[in-house]
């Protein structure tokens, strides 16, 4: 080993020790800190995937904006979908602090090289779906995201704090919508039950594969990127949701769902992981539709981005020539 290589090695070891020490002391890693390549790439992948989920997540509900049953519901839904766009932007902004390029991440999304949450590949068939998505899908997201507010990467944790505050509105508006429908006609109550039946299992899949099939969990937990395993969070979600379902008066579509006194948790039936794998791989009911809508929006918006740049350049040149002229006329 040359002297230079030896010195580099010593420096890298010192930096790695400092990184480990920061994590061990529950301190945050910040953008310009040294970090292992694996930490950086895991973080970029997770944040990007999360950002993509927020952006694609606008579509299932967005399609109901023009068909909202009242002005009140329309205003709420618009605000909610706008929030999802905002969440995507916070997260892309966090990913960029790690050296990722936003344009590149969008490209990876629309060419299928990066994933988004499989839940958004299911269709929204009635307005009750808007309520159930708020209640179950956003409820599951909150379960996942609250611990991420303490994630070891500073910009990600800060984005999550902001997002969690706003998600609470999402969940509550959904549950309130469902309570309203449950007080309505039989047909409306049936719609709520039907939407619950369709979204319950996919919501449980949102927490990802079971712990024994999730090879990256151990490393992510050691790095403080993840705080709980997939199964722990899934259990927490089930425990929280069962009493909400009872209060609402809907039946969760799982005959094996029952309280386990010994464990102090609800036991639930087996999840169809084949369905999960198929949807993640692209064979869900709406995968192609979601990606093509995102690609179309990106392509259709190209002229706006180009025009904005030309406008900005023109305004700058005009400002320069005006100030230049004023300078000549001066004393």
């Amino acid at each position, binding site marked *: 080993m040359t002297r230079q290589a030896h010195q580099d090695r010593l420096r890298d070891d010192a930096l790695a020790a400092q990184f480990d020490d920061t994590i061990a002391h529950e301190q945050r890693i910040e953008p*310009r800190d040294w970090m292992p390549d694996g930490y950086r790439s895991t973080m970029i992948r997770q944040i990007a995937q999360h950002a993509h989920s927020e952006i694609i997540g606008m579509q299932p509900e967005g399609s109901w904006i023009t068909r909202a049953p009242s002005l009140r519901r329309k205003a709420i839904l618009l605000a909610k979908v706008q929030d999802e766009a905002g969440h995507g932007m916070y997260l892309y902004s966090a990913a*960029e602090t790690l*050296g990722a390029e936003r344009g590149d991440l969008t490209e990876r999304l629309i060419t299928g090289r990066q994933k988004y949450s499989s839940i958004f590949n299911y269709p929204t068939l009635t307005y009750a779906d808007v309520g159930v998505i708020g209640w179950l899908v956003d409820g599951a997201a909150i379960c996942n995201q609250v611990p991420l507010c303490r994630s070891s990467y500073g910009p990600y944790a800060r984005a999550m704090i902001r997002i969690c505050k706003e998600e609470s509105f999402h969940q509550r508006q959904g549950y309130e919508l469902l309570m309203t429908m449950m007080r309505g006609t039989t047909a409306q109550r049936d719609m709520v039950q039907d939407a619950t039946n369709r979204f319950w299992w996919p919501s449980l899949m949102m927490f990802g594969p079971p712990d024994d099939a999730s090879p990256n969990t151990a490393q992510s937990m050691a790095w403080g990127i993840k705080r709980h395993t997939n199964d722990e969070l899934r259990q927490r979600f089930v425990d929280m949701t069962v009493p909400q379902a009872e209060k609402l008066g809907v039946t969760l579509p799982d005959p094996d769902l029952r309280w386990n006194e010994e464990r102090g948790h609800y036991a639930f039936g087996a999840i169809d992981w084949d369905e999960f794998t198929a949807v993640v791989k692209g064979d869900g009911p709406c995968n192609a539709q979601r990606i093509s809508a995102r690609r179309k929006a990106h392509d259709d918006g190209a002229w706006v981005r180009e025009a904005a740049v030309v*406008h900005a350049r023109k305004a700058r040149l005009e400002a320069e020539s005006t100030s230049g002229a004023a300078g000549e006329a001066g004393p």
Partner: protein
Amino acid sequence: MTRTVKAGEAGYQLYEVFLRGKRGLNHVHVGSLHAADAQMALHHARDLYTRRNEGVSIWVVKAADITASSPQEKDPFFAPSGDKVYRHPTFYDIPDDVPHM
């Protein structure tokens, strides 16, 4: 800070956003966004970071214009303040029965 926006979004630049939450508080960094110019950055910052009355004033700064200290030089850079414990009030022993101090 040397972050810039590459081609693909040619002409757009990265802006860092700072918000004053209410009168009497400092502007605080809240995140970043892409915009073609400062005016557009201000409008985007309003839409993105103040949807719920989070701010009464916004600053946007091109990320490329920010000069930051390097975390690698952390120790030597901040060393001058590390060994001056006498700058802190707790350095001085004052009897407990001296009032208002």
